[in-house]
């Protein structure tokens, strides 16, 4: 594997740093070219003119590559104990034994563990750390890598293209139903670093995949940055369910990009929970390009003290008979700010399309904020579009009702919040659901368990 031991780069970004990263990974030239072009875009692009305030994020002080003191292993026993412990605390090796078809575990800038069950290999499924996939399946990767999210898409896509490292590549051949979910988990352990994993998923005709992504990190007084990219290609008649539980540390800027393209009769299901980070901008997008393609979203955004989470969903209906369904909810409490930004665009040719968007925002107290900005653009008159929005405070009468049954005010609030988030929570794998309820209890000083 890698002989050029690069432990970490200097803070900031220039051509030499990119060269170092690329060389340490023994990359083919075309990938280095993508990085160099991305760097140019990055240097020339302004910051986004909407969303969260990132003026306090000093990109020159971010360390863009930090190699963990570990190789990418196929057995947990070979992962150094201090790193392995972190993943054990998260219950990942155990979940893998019990309910997962494959697991990737990234610490800082590289995967430290990546493995899948033998039975999946026999089905022809490819599941590799992204950098390894670049070397072992260059043609396949080249065909898809940063085509859905081009490096010049926006400033942080460009940054990602320049310094991306780690992440997961999955290819599912035609007509394979991957029987259990595959999971990748991302941990950020070093202060002042940026994590830029790349997830590329290609699910071929008639196949099915469920992928779970988890992220968390250690909290520091300096800023950390996360700018990952997820590209999902859902081929004809295929189904992909992509679930994310994002719980970055509260010093993290999470400026993340996720996009899926969906071919004829394919389905993308996004389950997305944003709860960590100081500031987030994240709008998973679905490009419905084949007739009858479908997108479903169940998303929640959970903004507490000091957090400004700007999230949303974007659906582009480009073909006839496409459909989309969005259930997006947010909670803000303790001064948190949750912003929902939604876009549904139905093109002229996407006749007989259907879309329903339901976004609701619940503010738990008087100091928290919530906004919704749904945009719907329909270019033909043969489509059915529905939209509902609700922004409101937690209902005093509900609290009173629950308290009249003996629940404390904190318990009552936690229960109402849990109930509000139930459509999301019940989509989660069991251990995530338990953890999520525990976090709600903690934030509301509740002991409902």
């Amino acid at each position, binding site marked *: 594997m890698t002989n050029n031991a690069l432990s970490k780069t200097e803070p900031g970004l220039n051509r030499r740093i990119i060269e170092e990263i690329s060389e340490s990974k023994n990359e083919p030239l075309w990938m280095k070219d993508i990085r160099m072009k991305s760097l140019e875009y990055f240097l020339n692009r302004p910051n986004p003119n909407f969303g969260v305030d990132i003026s306090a994020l000093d990109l020159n002080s971010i360390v863009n590559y930090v190699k963990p003191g570990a190789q990418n292993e196929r057995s947990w026993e070979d992962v150094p104990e201090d790193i392995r412990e972190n993943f054990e605390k998260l219950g990942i090796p155990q979940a893998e034994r019990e309910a997962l078809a494959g697991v990737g575990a990234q610490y800082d800038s590289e995967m430290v563990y990546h493995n899948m069950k033998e039975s999946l290999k026999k089905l022809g499924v490819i599941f590799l750390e992204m950098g390894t996939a670049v070397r072992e399946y260059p043609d396949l990767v080249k065909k898809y890598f940063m085509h859905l999210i081009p490096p010049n898409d926006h400033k942080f896509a460009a940054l990602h293209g320049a310094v991306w490292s780690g992440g997961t590549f999955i290819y599912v051949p035609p007509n394979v139903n991957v029987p259990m979910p595959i999971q990748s988990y991302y941990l950020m352990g070093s202060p002042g670093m940026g994590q830029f994993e790349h997830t590329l998923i290609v699910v071929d005709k008639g196949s099915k995949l469920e992928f779970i992504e988890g992220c968390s990190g250690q909290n520091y007084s300096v800023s950390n940055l996360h700018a990952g990219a997820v590209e999902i290609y859902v081929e004809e008649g295929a189904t992909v369910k992509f679930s994310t539980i994002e719980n970055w540390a509260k010093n993290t800027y999470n400026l993340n990009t996720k996009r899926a393209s969906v071919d004829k009769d394919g389905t993308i299901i996004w389950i997305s929970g944003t709860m960590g980070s100081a500031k987030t901008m994240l709008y998973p997008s679905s490009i419905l390009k084949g007739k009858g393609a479908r997108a479903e979203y169940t998303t929640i955004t959970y903004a507490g003290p000091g957090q400004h989470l700007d999230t949303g969903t974007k659906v582009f209906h480009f073909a006839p008979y496409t459909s989309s369904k969005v259930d997006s909810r947010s909670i803000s409490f303790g001064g948190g700010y949750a912003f929902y930004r939604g876009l549904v665009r139905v093109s002229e040719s996407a006749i007989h399309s259907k879309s329903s968007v339901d976004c609701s925002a619940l503010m738990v107290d008087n100091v928290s904020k919530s906004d919704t900005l749904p945009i719907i653009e329909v270019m033909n008159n043969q489509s059915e579009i529905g939209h509902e929005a609700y922004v409101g405070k937690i*209902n*005093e*009468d*509900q609290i*009173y*009702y*629950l*308290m*009249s*049954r*003996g*629940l*404390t*005010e904190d*318990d*009552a609030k936690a*229960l*109402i919040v*849990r*109930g*509000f*988030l*139930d*459509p999301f929570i019940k989509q989660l794998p069991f251990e995530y659901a338990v953890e999520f309820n525990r976090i709600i209890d903690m934030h509301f000083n509740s002991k*409902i368990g």
Partner: protein
Amino acid sequence: MELIKIIDLHASIGEKEVIKGVNLTVNRNEIHAIMGPNGAGKTTLINVIMGNPKYRVTSGEILFEGKSILNLSVDERARLGIFQSFQYPEEISGVTFMNFLRLAYEKMHPDQKMSVLEFGDMMVKIADSLKMDHNFLKRYVNLGFSGGERKKSEILQLSALNPKIALLDETDSGLDIDALKIVSEGINNASKNGMAVVLVTHYKRILDYVKPKFVHIFIDGRIVKTGGIELAEELERNGYEEVRI
């Protein structure tokens, strides 16, 4: 034994006085009916006893088992054993009846440890006795319930939580005769272990099944007359204005 004793109670909502000097004593095991015209303040009285923060007690006293409860919060009063049944119970989306009631039960009876299964069995028995579908327990609290289902849901909660006193607000309104009988039986069963009942109603009908020891006529923020069941009969014939005198 004096369970609850209300002494010259005055209470307001905003600047408006709604409870204008109520005196009422309810002993263990007693059933009291309160009847009165719309807007008289019956619902307000129940809310004030329960401790709804929307209402302000301006003077007077409420004693529960001899101690003032005026400084206690709603949930503290609930845990003492006071139960309010609502005319229009709230919907709580995403929370199943079973989970909600288990939580409430643990709060009300912290010393009685019951397993999930035991609690489930108990709830199923109560649901059966109220002729409610078991699926009811898996549904979200009051969400999309019909009027009759809501009334039953309140009595189901009453039966499960086993309070010392039940304050029932028009639990009979909108029920057909079969449902009324079932709900009444539920109330009677719950009161077998000494529970007291204060029942607000417009109709004598329910008093054929839930038999009160006292009937109070409540007009304009006060109890103006107290008697037995004959008072309800008189009311049915002559209306409030006649009875008042």
